[in-house]
């Protein structure tokens, strides 16, 4: 193992102290309101927890996020399987999905406004659609990339279709599906924040926009920290799951 990876507790703590201390000093000496030193952020954070503002905002964000993501999983996996099994259909769909996936979502916001309005449905769509694309594209790839060596072994043991699916195709696709779930979750989190900042100003994204118009960076930073930790927890959990099943991909 490389010596670089030898974990250290002191170095991150030291650098945290340097960064936060420096920020505190600089922020205080210039303009504590505008540069929101850590002490200011912590004060704001406890105030927002006490007033229940943060919990209420997080609840609104979670509702759209989890419902949209759940729908994306329910729709995305079967659609991906269809694209993988009927490979001609998959090939035809591929360019559209790729084009939509690589278009920055902020520029699609005007279209979403005319199609879904600015409320919950619009946010739900922002979460659902892009997560569903990520999940279905990866699932399709997994279905197509059944390991030829295992397929051959199964054939020579005269496995029937059900056995083939049960023992070869589905286990082979699982690592890909999990990768899709992770990428979809990343997309979903950004989607809900875009919806809350650009459409109806609610939830954690709304707190950021509100803080921006009230010129309260401390408030914005609180919301940013909550969003970032929420995203990190969700993505890390899915990442661990993905790693757990990585070996099922076999040696490529």
């Amino acid at each position, binding site marked *: 193992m*490389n010596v*670089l990876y*030898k*974990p*250290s507790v002191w*170095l*991150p703590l*030291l*650098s*945290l102290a340097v*960064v936060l201390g420096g920020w505190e000093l600089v922020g205080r000496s210039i303009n504590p309101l*505008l*540069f929101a030193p850590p002490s200011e952020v912590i004060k704001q954070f406890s105030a927002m927890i006490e007033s229940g503002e943060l919990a209420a905002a997080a609840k609104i964000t979670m509702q759209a996020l989890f419902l949209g993501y759940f729908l994306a999983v329910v729709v995305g996996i079967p659609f991906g399987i269809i694209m993988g099994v009927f*490979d*001609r259909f998959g*090939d*035809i*769909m*591929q*360019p*559209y999905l*790729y*084009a939509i996936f*690589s*278009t*920055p*979502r*902020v*520029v*699609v*916001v*005007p*279209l979403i*406004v*005319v*199609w879904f309005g600015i409320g919950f449905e619009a946010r739900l769509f922002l979460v659902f659609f892009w997560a569903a694309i990520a999940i279905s594209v990866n699932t399709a790839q997994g279905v197509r990339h*059944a390991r*030829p060596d295992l*397929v051959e072994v199964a054939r020579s043991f005269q496995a029937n279709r059900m056995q083939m699916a049960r023992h070869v195709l589905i286990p082979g696709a699982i690592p890909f599906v999990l990768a899709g779930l992770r990428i979809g979750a990343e997309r979903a*989190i*950004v989607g809900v*924040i*875009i919806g809350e*900042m*650009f459409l109806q100003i609610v939830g954690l*994204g709304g707190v*950021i*926009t509100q*803080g*921006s118009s009230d*010129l309260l*960076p401390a408030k*914005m*930073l609180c919301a*940013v920290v909550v*969003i*970032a930790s929420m*995203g*990190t927890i969700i*993505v890390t959990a899915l990442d661990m799951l993905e790693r757990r099943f990585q070996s099922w991909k076999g040696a490529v």
Partner: protein
Amino acid sequence: MKTRSSREIRRDQIVGVLVFLTVWEITARFLDNKLVLPSVSQIMAAFWDLLISGELILALSESIWLLIVGLFISTVIGFILGALVARSRTAYWMLNPYFSALFATPTIALVPLVLVWFGFGFPGRVIVVVLAAVVPIMFSVASGLRDDPKDLVDVARSFGVKGELALLFRVRVRSALPVLLAGLRLAAGRGVVGMAVAETYLRLGGIGGLIKSYGSLFQTDYVFASILPLSLLGITIVSLIGRLERRFHWS
């Protein structure tokens, strides 16, 4: 599993696009609601209008310039920090946590902060692009330079290459090139998003500003006509770097 030739796939895709556009056109004419779904011909007309009025070219050139400056700065910063993190354990444990945190934070959430702290002139927009793009570059430089090409370094030494810096650029960077390009490709994709976010947030210049202003006028045909070049820009840049990556795939 049988595989289909790329020619067959291409043919199917072309037929698919034609069918798709025809269905769109017919549906749009049937709905007859330009606000919700403009027809393909209306979008083409809007596109032509944007093209000959010079609006599109101007917006695109602004956006591309922002992207170039942003990616250049991201590359410089990402390279320096990545090289530090790759060669020093202290730097790794002091810097890496912040970059992981930055990577996990949606760029869009940081835009209002950048607005308050740096204003929304060109520098502010460049900062947004850098925030979006710097992390993949830094990570790829760090992982590319960490694998020590010991045999190559030994050969270079015996041919008289002296000094860590010379070794870094003449041996290590070159042997890590495929990894670095992969990082640049990821960064370009994120950079395009950062660019769009920065321009859209204040309805200010560039292709993002164009889309935002037509969006607030509810001219859906013009919105479609300006989203299209933006998507193409992103796809083109990413696939160009991808091609470069395959060309230099020597490790």
